[in-house]
């Protein structure tokens, strides 16, 4: 690693937007006020499943202060959804509601209170239908259909993929384990409630400011939903007060605000209440899993067969991708020569699940890493050593055709084993104290866009001003992860200026080139590579102009410390601002594009588009816990996590992502549950939906491992999602280590621990978890040859690279 060649990269710099955030200057969507602003409110269904017989808005319209009332009949009759294959949503339901919280009408009024009162005056006549509240119920009642489309009655998606002969692999194994796990759903719980402000201009064009992670997808879908030219819609991303995947879909409030603004000619703001945020959801899918794995005596894996059943909720959302993701990344951590995956997503009358941090991969990771632990115990192997010996090979393909590049997992494992004192502690702690380990991997950006196209995934325009300021125009959205800052650091690094000399503008579909959005941990890599390309183009023009002025060869010049000068002779040069003037004098306006699209290496099979990524991050985690035998309470006392981030462009921000991921994983493994009673959320409040406070979050020791990946900007990989994954199984394994109870079901609540201890006292197996599997026939598997061990090119060909 050649750290010395960088001047900005690798430094612990403050984020460029930190100063505004600490003084309350940052304007989130709900902070926006426009002249003549109207306030909107949605009326939502109290029924989990019902036909809409009639909606009478007359009394609401008559209320003084009400500007407009709309129902689904006031919108074009089109359904939409974030994925082209699941166009099943309506902003305001017309004929049928499918969950408590489905919006059926919207009001714009002089203030929020009047809007709310007006919604109460809307009379909706429902005809309740049988609600289907679980996977079992939905499969048992094919005569009741939540949607008319899918792979069977109430089956949104069913997939079956086989890569090699798993049955032969099991026959060749010394130990074959079958285990069943359940991962309860949970939600993002961003601190900021979703908010949107829409304004129809007098020219008939529409502007939407929204707390969204994907302004581009919202832009595309608004054109379809509102049936107007996309060119006449402008979407501006407001700073997002926490996303975690919860602000990745187009939402009813955004659409209703647009329509209400069109009708009233006023700007309209709709901000969700906290309760509504729980219902719009799109969070972690509840997933039931069965996993069968063959092991040799040395712990190596002969093959794996994985099944998952996802409780999808009422709509498609990202669910097809989520389904594939529950089967995609099992293969990228350890050597798994043959692999079979079957998955099904079932519709139920609950808020739709979707992408939450880790999207579809924390559930199988939990299952797999717990099973590895059980196998290690049976084989008499140390669980850390067993993992260490079976790591996937760098620069190879996996059984299911994922291409892995650098793998820092070995170093991650070594570092957490060392730092945690694993060798001194594992098997040697007193009863009630335990230590557990797990590993994981995650995408650095999805290899494919949500809709098929050959355009860049990330675009940047870099404009150099005569003042020396450099403006970065990019459609990426900063959701707190610091992506705007990363773009500034990278441009500054290339141009030899200070990040302070750079302004990164918010995503604005009128002004900024498309970036697909803040999801799948893609922004640092994709927008980062694009900004490096743009900055390189700008720099070459600047250098050429300065070289001409100084009468030297361009390759003798370097850009550093806000100057462009002859290498080794800093006095022979000009300031960056002067260099810009020279370049603009010679070439005209200085504005340069950068484009990035991932290498095309999706597996050549249906479903092969979910899982490929330019490169994968790796993490290893050790958790120490105290388990109270009386109360069943699990208290993590210390956590060590090592993360292969490729290169830490700003270690401070990477640590922040790792710590935040660890924290969120702890919430999921110990307490968070998105659960319903008769379609009504049991705990839609921040008090009762338990999430860790400062008191429940232990000290987190973060270790950053660098592998300098050829795909990443200056070698960087993702950091925002991967480190969540190993925390969950590491805690489960630590609980077992502490008290001998296997809780194969997330969250590991005190009740479940006590249930296991009680079983143990009675001499029964101390396991708590699902006992049965749904009756469901997966489709015949598509037989695809395993690509395991095939070599991968170090750098695959990248579109727009030159």
């Amino acid at each position, binding site marked *: 690693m050649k750290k010395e060649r960088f001047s900005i990269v690798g430094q612990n710099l403050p*984020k460029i937007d930190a100063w*505004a955030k600490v*003084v309350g200057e940052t304007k989130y969507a709900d902070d926006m006020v426009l002249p003549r602003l109207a306030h909107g409110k949605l009326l939502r269904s109290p029924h989990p499943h019902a036909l809409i017989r009639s909606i009478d808005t007359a009394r609401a319209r008559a209320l003084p202060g009400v500007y407009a009332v709309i129902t689904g009949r006031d919108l074009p009759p089109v359904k939409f959804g974030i994925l082209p294959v699941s166009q099943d949503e309506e902003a305001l339901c017309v004929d049928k509601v499918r969950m408590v919280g489905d919006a059926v009408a919207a009001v714009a009024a002089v203030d929020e209170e009047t809007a709310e009162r007006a919604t109460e005056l809307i009379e909706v006549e429902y005809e309740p239908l049988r609600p289907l509240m679980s996977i079992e119920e939905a499969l048992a009642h094919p005569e009741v259909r939540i949607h008319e489309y899918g792979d069977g009655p109430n089956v949104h998606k069913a997939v079956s993929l086989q890569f090699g002969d798993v049955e032969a692999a099991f026959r060749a194994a010394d130990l074959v384990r079958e285990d069943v796990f359940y991962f309860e759903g949970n939600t993002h719980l961003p601190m900021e409630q979703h908010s949107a402000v829409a304004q129809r201009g007098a020219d008939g064009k529409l502007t939407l400011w929204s707390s969204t992670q994907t302004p581009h997808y919202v832009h595309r879908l608004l054109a379809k939903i509102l049936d107007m030219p996309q060119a006449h819609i402008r979407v501006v991303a407001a700073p*997002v007060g926490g996303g975690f995947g919860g602000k990745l879909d187009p939402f009813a409030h955004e659409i209703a605000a647009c329509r209400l603004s069109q009708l009233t000619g006023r700007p309209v703001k709709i901000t969700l209440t906290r309760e509504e945020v729980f219902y719009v959801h799109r969070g972690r899918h509840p997933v039931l899993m069965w996993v069968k794995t063959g092991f040799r005596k040395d712990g190596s894996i002969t093959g794996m067969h994985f099944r998952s059943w996802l409780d999808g909720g009422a709509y498609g959302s990202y669910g097809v991708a989520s389904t594939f993701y529950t089967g995609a990344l099992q293969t990228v951590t350890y050597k798994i020569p043959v692999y079979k995956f079957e998955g099904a997503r079932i519709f139920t009358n609950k808020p739709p699940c979707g992408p939450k941090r880790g999207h579809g991969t924390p559930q199988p990771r939990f299952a797999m890493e717990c099973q590895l632990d059980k196998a290690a115990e049976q084989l008499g192997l140390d669980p850390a050593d067993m993992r260490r010996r079976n790591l996937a090979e760098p620069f190879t393909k996996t059984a299911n055709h994922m291409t892995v590049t650098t793998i820092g997992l070995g170093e991650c494992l070594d570092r957490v084993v060392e730092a945690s004192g694993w060798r001194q502690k594992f098997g040697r702690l007193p009863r009630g104290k335990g230590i557990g380990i797990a590993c994981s991997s995650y995408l650095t950006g999805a290899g494919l866009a949500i809709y098929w196209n050959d355009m860049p995934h990330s675009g940047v325009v870099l404009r150099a001003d005569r003042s020396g300021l450099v403006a970065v125009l990019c459609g990426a959205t900063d959701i*707190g992860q610091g992506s705007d800052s990363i773009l500034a650091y990278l441009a500054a690094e290339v141009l030899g200026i200070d990040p302070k000399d750079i302004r990164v503008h918010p995503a604005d579909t009128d002004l900024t080139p498309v970036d697909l959005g803040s999801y799948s941990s893609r922004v640092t890599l994709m927008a980062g590579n694009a900004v490096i390309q743009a900055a390189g183009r700008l720099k070459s023009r600047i250098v050429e102009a300065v070289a001409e002025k100084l009468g030297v060869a361009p390759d003798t010049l370097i850009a550093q410390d806000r100057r462009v000068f002859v290498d080794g002779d800093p006095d022979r040069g000009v300031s960056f601002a002067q260099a810009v003037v020279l370049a603009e004098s010679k070439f005209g306006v200085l504005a340069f594009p950068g484009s990035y699209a991932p290498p095309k290496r999706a597996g050549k099979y249906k479903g092969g588009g979910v899982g490929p990524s330019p490169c994968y991050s790796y993490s290893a985690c050790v958790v120490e816990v105290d388990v109270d035998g009386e109360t069943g309470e699990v208290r993590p006392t210390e956590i060590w996590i090592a993360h292969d981030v490729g290169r830490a462009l700003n270690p401070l921000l990477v640590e922040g992502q790792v*710590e935040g991921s*660890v924290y969120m994983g702890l919430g999921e493994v110990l307490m968070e549950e998105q659960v319903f009673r008769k379609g009504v959320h049991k705990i839609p409040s*921040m008090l009762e939906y338990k999430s860790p406070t*400062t008191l429940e*979050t232990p000290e987190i020791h973060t270790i950053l491992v660098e592998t300098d990946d050829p795909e990443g900007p200056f070698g960087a990989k993702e950091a925002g999602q991967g480190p969540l994954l190993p925390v969950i199984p590491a805690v489960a394994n630590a609980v077992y280590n502490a008290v001998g109870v296997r809780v194969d079901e997330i969250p590991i609540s005190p009740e479940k621990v006590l249930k296991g201890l009680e079983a143990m006292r009675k001499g029964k197996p101390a396991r708590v978890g699902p006992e049965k599997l749904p009756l469901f026939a997966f489709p015949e598997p598509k037989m695809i040859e395993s690509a395991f061990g095939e070599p991968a090119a170090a750098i695959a060909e990248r579109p727009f690279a030159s």
Partner: protein
Amino acid sequence: MRTRLTLMVNGEEREVIAPVHKTLLEVLREDLNLTGTKHGCELGECGTCTVLIDGEPALSCLALPIECQGRAIKTVEGMAEGSQLHPLQQAFAELGAAQCGYCTPGILLTAEALLEDNPTPTRDEVRYALAGNLCRCTGYTKILDAVELAALRMKGAHR
């Protein structure tokens, strides 16, 4: 029913005419345009809307302005002295303690009240003081680090 309120906010006397049932949070944000104060639940559960009333952390979503007349209300906009940031603000920015930044104002003010009472808190004392402020981004680590750094710097400054 609307009423005339006289509020002392960030050292300035402000007159507002607002419905009596409007919360302090709403009056600060909507009538005084002090949008630095955020809301996460409006039910007193998350700590996001914390302001200081006579130096004590208070949930502005549960406070009625009419009861705050004659008392000193401080919001995040009042923390800096002119353009000189409060040491807590400086430390939060430097150490990456604000990610999405939405919980940051409430946490900064809670921490300010803590350091006023206890200029040299232990890490666990900082934890207890901030236990009512939820943050979903940071895992709290950098927040604790920043409060400790600010405490250290303030102690140095007082010497």
